């Protein structure tokens, strides 16, 4: 009878059922009873240790993928079937952070589009002791496999046991018999094949899909404005808190990005939704969040330049590209310095106090004195605010013509942003499909204005960098040539974007959109 080939876990073919072992059952007697009911052949016990990875925002899990490292080999598997998508072994036991850290391989090709710029984080290490029993027929042929697996999460010591029944192709009746035996034994409901992974991750304090950079506050129309805003601010604060460690340990640039978006949203809320918080609370929060915005700005700006490196290079003829090397080295150096400063700040008592104060207010029982808008129904206030923002956008938009200075476009961009945030805050109060359409229409206009602004900021930065370059050295001359080339290219593109503004603006203020906004918000 076979004694080898005990790796049937990922082999496809037959059916499979998995149960989590109920606390009321013990494995020992269960195995003994199974051996009484069937002809059973034990296999050698196996121990395996798997370290599981995903990004902070579960990009693999969302695509129904799971990634683990076992004995220096990386495996990417399909979450539901456990079938392998690809495996990679680089020889050395390296822990890769980004998809591009993997040597060129199918693994890298599959990971790159999913992970994008996010890094892989170790989630949990699961040690599994697997006891396999083969179920044989009268010919001694295996007709089903049963695995009794004890999983232990190394980080927390949490334990979890599963029983897996795997059928063989062409032996369905055997599968059904054993399955019936387990049902009669009180095994309960089946669990997903990735249940051990989920249990392990849960024991370390995380839950799949527990983080997303998307903002989704579930408001009720009957809430008061203060209740609603407190809920929104709480959610934004939570986003910030969940990204702190990632920024401090510099895990990838998206932690800071998400943190800053939450800060910006909060600031926007404080400005847009007036007379809802007690005056003293509002004043302090405004000051604090403005500080958070400025203290995190430098690192983010530098992150953006570094992330766009390839795009910058593509704007230049090939010969000039190497001249930019020193520029990016310089940027990377500055970025590291800024990042260290930021990291130190986030660990400082000053920051802890700032956040602690805001946290205490939002979660406290005493939300302070009433203000003019605090007890108004949120629905009413939401309509009022969105309407006001919409009118402003329309007014400014119409005033812009080909002769308007760039400054005007910049102001319109800010107005659009405010409208966008206002709509997102209160999105849950309106019909989902319509709000989605309204945001989509606004986004088209914002994309145009955003590109225009980015191009202008980039040119400003390059010009001031150029001004700071010491003349004389050959290297700096070459660098200046390359930057000059970049400036020209950016300028042309900016003009191009401006030419498209009219179309974008007219599209946004079309009759159809007008009706869409009017119907929803007035």
């Amino acid at each position, binding site marked *: *009878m*076979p004694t080898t080939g005990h790796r049937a876990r990922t*082999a*496809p073919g037959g059916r499979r059922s998995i149960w989590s072992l109920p606390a009321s059952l013990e494995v020992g007697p269960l195995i003994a009873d199974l051996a009484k009911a069937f002809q059973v052949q034990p296999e050698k016990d196996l121990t395996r240790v798997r370290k599981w990875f995903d990004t902070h925002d579960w990009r693999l899990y969302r695509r129904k993928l799971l990634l683990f490292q076992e004995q220096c080999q990386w495996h990417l598997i399909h979450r539901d079937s456990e079938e392998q998508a690809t495996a990679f072994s680089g020889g050395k036991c390296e822990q890769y952070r980004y998809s591009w850290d993997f040597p060129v391989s199918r693994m890298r090709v599959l990971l790159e589009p999913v992970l994008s710029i996010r890094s892989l984080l170790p989630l949990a290490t699961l040690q599994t002791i697997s006891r396999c029993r083969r179920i044989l027929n009268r010919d001694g*042929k295996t007709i089903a496999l049963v695995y009794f697996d004890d999983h232990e999460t190394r980080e927390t010591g949490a334990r979890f046991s599963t029983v897996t029944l795997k059928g*063989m*192709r*062409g032996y369905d009746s055997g599968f059904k018999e054993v399955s019936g035996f387990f049902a009669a034994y009180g095994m309960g409901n089946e669990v997903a094949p990735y249940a051990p992974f989920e249990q392990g991750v849960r024991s370390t304090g995380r839950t799949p899909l527990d983080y997303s950079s998307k903002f989704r506050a579930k408001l009720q129309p009957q809430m008061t404005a203060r209740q609603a805003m407190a809920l929104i601010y709480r959610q934004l604060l939570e986003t910030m808190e969940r990204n702190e460690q990632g920024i401090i340990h510099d895990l990838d640039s998206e932690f800071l990005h998400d943190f800053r978006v939450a800060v910006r949203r909060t600031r926007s809320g404080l400005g847009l939704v007036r007379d809802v918080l007690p005056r003293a609370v509002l004043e302090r929060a405004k000051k604090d969040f403005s500080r958070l915005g400025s203290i995190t700005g430098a690192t983010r700006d530098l992150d953006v330049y570094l992330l766009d490196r390839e795009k910058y290079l593509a704007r230049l003829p090939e010969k000039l590209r190497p001249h930019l090397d020193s520029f990016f080295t310089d940027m990377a150096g500055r970025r590291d310095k800024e990042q260290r400063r930021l990291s130190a700040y986030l660990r400082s008592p000053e920051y802890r106090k700032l956040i602690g104060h805001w946290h205490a207010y939002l979660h406290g029982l005493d939300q302070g004195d009433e203000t003019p808008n605090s007890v108004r129904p949120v629905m009413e206030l939401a309509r009022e605010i969105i309407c006001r923002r919409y009118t402003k956008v329309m007014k400014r938009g119409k005033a812009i013509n080909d002769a308007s200075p760039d400054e005007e476009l910049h102001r319109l961009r800010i107005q659009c942003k405010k409208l966008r945030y206002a709509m997102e805050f209160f999105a849950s109060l309106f019909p989902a499909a319509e709000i989605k359409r309204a945001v989509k229409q606004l986004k088209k206009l914002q994309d145009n204005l955003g590109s225009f602004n980015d191009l202008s900021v980039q040119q400003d930065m390059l010009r001031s960098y150029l001004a700071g370059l010491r003349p004389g050295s050959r290297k700096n001359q070459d660098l200046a040539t390359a930057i000059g080339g970049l400036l020209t290219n950016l300028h042309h593109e900016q003009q191009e974007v401006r030419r498209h503004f009219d179309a974008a603006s007219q599209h946004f203020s079309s009759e159809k959109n007008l009706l869409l906004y009017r119907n929803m918000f007035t």
Partner: protein
Amino acid sequence: MAVIAVYNIKGGVGKTATAVNLSYLSAREGRKTLLCDMDPQGSSTFYFRIRPDRKFNTKKLLKGGKHIDQSIRGTDFPWLDLLPADFSYRNIDIALDDMKKSRQRISRVLKPLRREYQNIFIDCPPNITLLSENIFYAADHILVPLIPTTLSHLSLQQLYRFLEEIGESRSKVMVFFSMVEKRKKMHWELMRQLIKKKGVLPALIPYLADIEKMGLYRQPVGAALPQSPAALAYVDLWREISKRMEKS
């Protein structure tokens, strides 16, 4: 992805042992592998402790598609499936003869399976018939176990002539020596003559009791006795074949 037919006109040369052990090794590398037992005696089927599906027969084999899917059985080894033989295969030529494009039938039946499996082994019955012609047409490689004797040599030449007659390339053929007895001088003599020829593999399978005993323990030698000389001989042979398959 390849279809490998294990074939010899003569019986008792170690065809089934070869098909069973090589398909096992292919699957052990993680390649999804199918072994088609086309010999009505069903020895490969027996070696894997599988009983053929009572509803399966020649007619269903030649129809292909879901009729075959339903009859494929998982072996005790990961990645290795088997299509059991049926006794009705003994009359398969009559059924083939009645069909249009009777030479390409097996090839057509295997087509969907080529997508599912990375390697397909065919354990062929020992004769030269319309079925053999079908298999030669469908196969990417024809693997011939050869006992180094004069008669075996003659049968090999018959095979080459037959291939020429039906317009199949000789380059599909890979020959290796099977059931070699080191103390027999004639075996050495013949091997020395043939080894330099094209398509003859240097790896050989000696005559070993462990291989004969497969009928008792009913599993590949690599699974039953992984460190035995027999198991290691098949590992060498499979390595040699994989190398050649990669080249072609």
